């Protein structure tokens, strides 16, 4: 069927397909962007995925892309493709809310490095996406800008903190999005909306201009509908940045070209997480099925365990709380009522824990990483475990503003994601099935440092296998 025929719905295509359609002129960036803007506006009352939709500016970007293409200049696979990102990335001259009322809405005079790199790649940015207040919170709840609702069931949480990123992609408004992840904030909403989400290795992607939760843990990464689409976005943003001294001096491989081979010969193992949490029976069952599929593709799978997972969780937790309190203490003093009860309560302990505990967590990090690589990963390239131990909760069940609930809710949802922020290793979440309510369940692929290419390739293979 010709791409120009009536049944063609560009927004439901993969990024790769729509990129090709743009390149050969079957669709223009302007018309594609107009469709994305119209869909964003029509779904906004239902899903609340956007903080702001940038109509005219996005169309101007799109027209410029079309003019360049007409003149024979093609910037690459993201040229003219509509994307949108969590409202925690600086854009020159645009107010950044970070989903909060506590800070004066910042008016940046620079672009975040990742935004600059996407601009250079020709991506069109159609708006600022909703998020948990101050990039803190695993549910997608936001008392100031309204909760972002799950794209599959609006009565359920979207997951957070990159809530709008997941929902805008899952609902077919945009082809991909950037989120940030300090304890699970890319993986949780990706899993709860049936997407691929990648938390890269700490230092793989610049965080310059990305509002922090905890500078020792934060990672920026893509959410998209396929591993291939994630690879296109990661390819554009990964790599050292002279403005971010935490970025690693490591070359960036060809993620897109590696999709077909980088997982070849991978040794896969199941990570036993029973020591740190009990998973719901539906999660356990879906995970067992997924592990069988992985075994069919990659050969015999053994189960490995780590006695350090609990320590990794709590050390990530304390770093997050102390670094957040370091930044937010000033605003908590000045405007306490501008914080929700949940975010204020979660940040408050960071002011009171002993400094030595925080420094212990940072000082033993290299040793715990080495123990991890020499232990559970000694004979494995990728480990598997569920992303969220429970089915997607309802918004009522996960309401963190109810007194006395915040610590338990956060702990229950992030139990399987936060340890890997502490270890700094790359983790990809992908769908592993649906629960009895029809909601997606996610599985994590945990790699060695800088192993994003292998994870994307493995997800590419396993997604194809699941569709057969």
């Amino acid at each position: 069927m010709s791409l120009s025929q009536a049944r063609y719905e560009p927004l439901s295509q993969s990024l790769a397909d729509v990129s090709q359609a743009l390149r050969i002129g079957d669709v223009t960036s302007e018309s594609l962007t107009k469709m994305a803007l119209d869909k964003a506006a029509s779904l906004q009352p239902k899903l609340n995925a956007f903080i702001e939709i940038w109509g005219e500016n996005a169309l101007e970007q799109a027209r410029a892309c079309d003019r360049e293409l007409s003149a024979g200049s093609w910037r690459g696979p993201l040229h003219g493709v509509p994307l949108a990102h969590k409202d925690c990335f600086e854009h020159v001259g645009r107010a950044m809310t970070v989903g909060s009322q506590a800070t004066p809405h910042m008016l940046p005079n620079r672009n975040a490095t990742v935004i600059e790199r996407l601009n250079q790649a020709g991506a069109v940015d159609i708006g600022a996406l909703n998020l948990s207040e101050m990039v803190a919170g695993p549910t997608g709840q936001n008392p100031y800008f309204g909760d972002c609702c799950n794209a599959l069931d609006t009565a359920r949480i979207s997951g957070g903190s990159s809530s709008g990123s997941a929902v805008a992609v899952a609902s077919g408004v945009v082809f991909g999005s950037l989120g940030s992840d300090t304890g699970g904030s890319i993986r949780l909403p990706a899993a709860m909306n049936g997407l691929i989400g990648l938390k890269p290795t700490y230092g793989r992607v610049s965080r310059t201009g990305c509002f922090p939760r905890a500078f020792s843990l934060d990672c920026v990464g893509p959410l998209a509908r396929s591993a291939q689409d994630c690879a296109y976005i990661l390819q554009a943003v990964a790599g050292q940045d002279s403005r971010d001294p935490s970025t690693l001096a490591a070359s960036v491989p060809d993620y897109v070209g590696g999709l077909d081979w980088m997982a070849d010969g991978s040794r896969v193992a199941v990570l036993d997480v029973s020591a740190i949490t009990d998973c719901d029976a539906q999660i356990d069952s879906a995970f067992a099925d997924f592990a069988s599929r992985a075994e069919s593709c990659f050969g015999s799978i053994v189960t490995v365990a780590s006695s350090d997972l609990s320590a990794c969780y709590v050390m990530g937790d304390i770093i997050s709380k102390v670094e957040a309190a370091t930044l937010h203490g000033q605003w908590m003093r000045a405007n306490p009522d501008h914080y929700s009860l949940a975010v204020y309560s979660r940040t408050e302990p960071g002011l009171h824990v002993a400094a030595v505990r925080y420094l212990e967590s940072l000082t033993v990090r290299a040793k715990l990483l080495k123990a991890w690589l020499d232990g559970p990963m000694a004979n494995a390239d990728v480990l598997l475990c569920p992303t969220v131990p429970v089915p997607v909760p309802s918004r009522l069940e996960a309401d963190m503003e109810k007194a006395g609930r915040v610590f338990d809710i956060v702990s229950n949802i992030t139990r399987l994601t936060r340890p890997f922020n502490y270890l700094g290793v790359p983790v990809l979440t992908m769908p592993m099935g649906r629960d009895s309510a029809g909601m997606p369940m996610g599985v994590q692929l945990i790699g060695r440092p800088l192993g994003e290419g292998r994870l994307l390739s493995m997800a590419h293979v396993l997604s194809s296998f699941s569709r057969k």
Partner: protein
Amino acid sequence: MTAVNEDASRVSLLDNVRIAIEGTAECLHGIVSRASTAEVAKEVVRLNNEVRNGAAGRIGPFDQPLDFFGALLSGADLTNEGRQS
């Protein structure tokens, strides 16, 4: 220590931390607690004890936080170089 004594000791620790937080939140940090101070104290004690136990015996005289970057690079997946690790 008997179970009863352990419980009493834990309650006493939580009470002490709660009292300390109530007494210092404003004068040291300039904030008034908005959460229940008992909840904050419980969280502070949990973080303190679990991190202290997790780090015990692991810190040597030459360890420093920056070692982490070296550990990431030295443990990198070799598939990026077209080889298997």
